[in-house]
């Protein structure tokens, strides 16, 4: 289940749909047949929004789902790029992607029960994983956290494929009040997992990875870094690991939690 990733390509894309799904979050469906056919859970695409914009760099987005000719991106509107993204209309053909990129989630042989821990938009790369695992008969339990109920993205998908979805919100508007660590602790206390996958704010991932280490469950984390090239050439995306710097774009974004040294805050702090 962990074949060598297929070679990335540049693919022109067209917008099939682009809808605001909640305050500040959009779901963009792109026609991208080649990427859709080869992308694996946890991989990402590097999206070029415009060729005459003053923001010249591509933007990395996990593939949230892929089916047929389509890939779906679940994105939070933050700055110039994602604002522009939110303005794109169906039929738009001004964008292209480089992808599929990176090493996705590693699915160990004989996996029977997986825990997925999503914080906020960290749900994005876990969507395709959850569907994939369920489709292969793996039992999936999900712990999901968000600031408030409306920010619990991908809920339908998670409910559809997971055996259990436990939820926490900062304001208690859905599930229990508090951090996602609550549900994680509860699930760990009652069930046995072969592996855990987590994505979300780095501080959250770090705490979750610690809990899983203590519980003896191997944990994979998906890390965000500023990425200029996305293909391993620029060294802008380094992650400090036990083996020195690694590049999040090609050596990650998925890492084994135990190799990551959580010693740097890499992303512009506003996010």
């Amino acid at each position, binding site marked *: 289940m962990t074949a060598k990733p297929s070679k990335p*390509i540049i693919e022109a894309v067209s917008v099939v749909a682009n809808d605001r799904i909640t305050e500040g979050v959009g779901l963009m469906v792109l026609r991208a047949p080649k990427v859709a056919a080869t992308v694996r859970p946890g991989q990402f695409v590097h999206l*070029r929004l415009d060729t005459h914009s003053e923001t*010249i760099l591509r933007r990395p987005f996990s593939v949230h789902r892929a089916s047929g000719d389509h890939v779906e991106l679940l994105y939070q509107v933050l700055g110039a790029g994602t604002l522009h993204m939110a303005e794109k209309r169906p039929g738009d053909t001004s964008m292209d992607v480089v992808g599929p990129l990176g090493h996705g989630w590693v699915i160990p042989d004989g996996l029977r029960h997986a825990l997925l821990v999503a914080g906020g938009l960290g749900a994005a790369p876990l969507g395709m994983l959850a569907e994939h695992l369920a489709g292969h008969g793996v039992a999936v339990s999900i712990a999901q956290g968000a600031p408030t109920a409306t920010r619990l993205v991908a809920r339908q998908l998670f409910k559809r494929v997971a055996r259990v979805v436990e939820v926490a919100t900062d304001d208690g508007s859905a599930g229990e009040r508090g951090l996602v660590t609550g549900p994680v602790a509860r699930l760990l206390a009652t069930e046995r997992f072969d592996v855990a996958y987590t994505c979300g704010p780095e501080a959250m991932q770090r705490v979750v990875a610690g809990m899983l280490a203590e519980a003896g469950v191997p944990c994979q984390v998906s890390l965000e870094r500023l990425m*200029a090239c996305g293909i391993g*050439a620029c060294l802008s995306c380094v992650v400090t690991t036990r083996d020195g710097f690694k590049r999040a774009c090609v050596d990650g974004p998925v890492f084994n939690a135990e190799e990551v040294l959580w010693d*740097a805050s890499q992303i*512009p702090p*506003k996010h």
Partner: protein
Amino acid sequence: MSVNLDMSVKLGTLELANPVMTASGTFASGREFADFIDLSRLGAIVTKGVSSEPWPGNASPRVAETASGMLNSIGLQNPGVEAFIKKDLAWLAEHAADTPVIVNVSGHSVDDYVRVIDRLEEEDAIDAYEVNISCPNVDEGGMAFGTDCLSAARVAASCRAATDRTLIVKLSPNVTDIVSIARSVQDAGADAVSLINTLLGMAIDASTRKPMLARVVGGLSGPAIKPVALRMVWQVSSAVDIPVIGMGGVRNGADAVEFMLAGASAVAVGTANFVDPTAAIRVLDGLAEYCREHGVSRASELTGALEL
């Protein structure tokens, strides 16, 4: 390419099949781009900066986007010359044997540069050195060598003494008078100069009150700096006798033409590789198309052909 179009150019004694090369630090050693382009079509591959010992580079964040440009403070992270030879040079020898290789050389001291060259002299399959005396992202050495005529000449002369291969010195734009620096390295024996390296810049996040780069300042590259780069290429090529390799914001064929008209014998594609992994080939194709459309039979005719 049409049989009638001669794209070859000369950098001193080094002949290139065409004038489009990659800019150091933006193309690794080519491997990452082999999925996207045919490396054998490049005029030359300029590798990332190589130092005598491994360099860890700077803390993150290391990049920040700016209007039509980006800042970087990578800090010449590299595994050192031995690892470079084992991994990168070996890979290049196997996968891009026909493409000229120019190794970009970094150092904290004059001796440091020479050490890298001494070691690389033992290896085949290197066509030239590009000595980086203009990196704004390291504390010792780096740009300091490139902002003063005497120290620039000192590095150039020592490297010259260490090799008979084509010696290119890469100049910093962060100077009052780039022409005098270029003259100094020419007089010290450089076969060519390349310019420009990045402009020293800074970005701040108003909401957090923090610099966007961990190192606070970094090097500005991309289309934003093209006007400064063109001006410097024009000034330098008007004043020196050695060839000039032009770079700074090149992303299409017209940009390459502009640099050549300004006086460049070859051009390098940098930041554009991040935006489009096929950028260097698009620049090459665009340049060839321009030549055909404008009845230019030898690309080298464009060098310095600006009409004033």
